[in-house]
């Protein structure tokens, strides 16, 4: 993805980043000629799809190891769905926002969203009440794991001991669902 400064007919360059929340990153790009700025907010799901191609967004610094993608993509048996619960054996970018990788070589330090995601992924999942689980089933299946990860993250950030109706209501209000 590139941004074009239509005033200067010039591709914009990465300038800075800001962590919107654990699963999203705001990235500012600026025109090197006129200084005009634009910010984008990443969608982790879309970038996950790109990472599914087995490429490092932003380029590789070391060559790929044999079967690197496959080894990183296999989900251990018994591991529940959703990105919030990978095990320590997961080494690839699957399950976390790969956008920090896109910023490799642009001066971006991989401590923002990546650290946040890492912290999020290394924590055990927050327990869910049966009613909250039932409500989650109303979310379309193809975005359910993303929703689960977001809700659990919200619960952790706001120090809820469990995902219950209150968390669901607050999260729903927050994301405007």
């Amino acid at each position, binding site marked *: 993805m590139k941004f074009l400064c239509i005033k200067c007919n010039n591709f914009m360059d990465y300038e800075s980043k800001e962590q919107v929340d654990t699963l999203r990153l705001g990235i500012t790009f600026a025109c090197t000629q006129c200084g005009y700025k634009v910010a984008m907010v990443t969608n982790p799901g879309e970038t996950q799809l790109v990472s599914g191609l087995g490429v490092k967004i932003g380029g590789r610094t070391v060559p790929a190891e*044999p079967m690197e993608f496959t080894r990183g993509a296999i989900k251990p048996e018994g591991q529940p769905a959703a990105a919030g619960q990978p095990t320590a054996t997961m080494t690839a970018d699957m399950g976390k926002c790969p956008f920090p990788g896109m910023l490799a070589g642009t001066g971006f330090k991989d401590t923002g969203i990546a650290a946040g995601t890492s912290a999020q992924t290394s924590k055990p999942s927050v327990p869910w009440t049966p009613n909250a689980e039932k409500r989650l089933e109303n979310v379309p299946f193809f975005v359910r794991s993303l929703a689960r990860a977001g809700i659990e993250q919200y619960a952790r950030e706001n120090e809820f001991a469990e995902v219950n109706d209150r968390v669901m209501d607050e999260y729903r209000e927050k994301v405007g669902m």
Partner: protein
Amino acid sequence: MKQGKSEERTITEVVKDLEAQQKKNKVVNPVLAQVLEQVAAVQTRMSRIKHKIAVMSGKGGVGKSSVTVNLAHSFAARGYKVGILDVDLSGPCIPKMMGVRDRSLKITAEGAQPAVGVNGIKVASMELMLPDEGSPVMWKGLWEDSAVWRGTVEMSVIREFISDVNWGPLDLLLIDMPPASSDKPPIISQMIPDLDGAVIVTIPSEISQFIVKKSVVFLSRELKILIIGLIENMSGAICPHCGEALELFEDASHGESPLQKMGLPLLGRVPFDRRIASCADHGRSFVDEHPLTPAAQAFRMITDSLQQHIESRRPS
């Protein structure tokens, strides 16, 4: 689009100019560069394999894997160095049939080392990356519920199996395809452009031929994959008690099937023999252990035809 400058140019014009400038300055898109590296790795690996044949069918349960394994043994008996790539990611059964289920792909600097089974046949399969026999194949990620995302992941996994498995020099790679799939054949046809062709496995039932006909049209017309011919599996049986030939399917006439009417050559008919399944269950070679059976003879005849095809097409 309106510009601040004197001229008005479209986004297309601007982008093309900028990209031409980047090309001139040799600025490479890092993602594209990796994709090109992947393509190069596939080509390099496949260049060491003389012949590649896909074993396909639009229908499940017709015995593709069983046919694949027995063809591999038949070719190996003729001195061919043979490998089997099991592309059935969700239902991989080649390792068990080849007696290598307890092995795993060893990762080395040269690539993933395939398991070596009976007759020196090399095997690569998703099964060899799973912890145990009961483990299902599951992918992890934020979008693991999404069919679109899973399709992308599986394409990358197959690409890695093609590029990263260190087969060494092979005379023949047999590619065992999953059943009833419309997404995997395009991956194979795109990644292995010098595929010698595909053999289509069917059974005498009308339902099977009805479904397989659709896949033949898809493979040959849309993907331009050369269909070498048909193999009719479970084509009758010999009664173990009286030796009488039995038709397993009521409508099996052994006349010209709808598939043959499409102009596809019939490579052979393999009669049902439960020892084929028994050997597969125990990782043994049916054609070597029961060489005088009609089924083993059928496999040898099919191998004759395939050998003739690949050697005439591209002399090794």
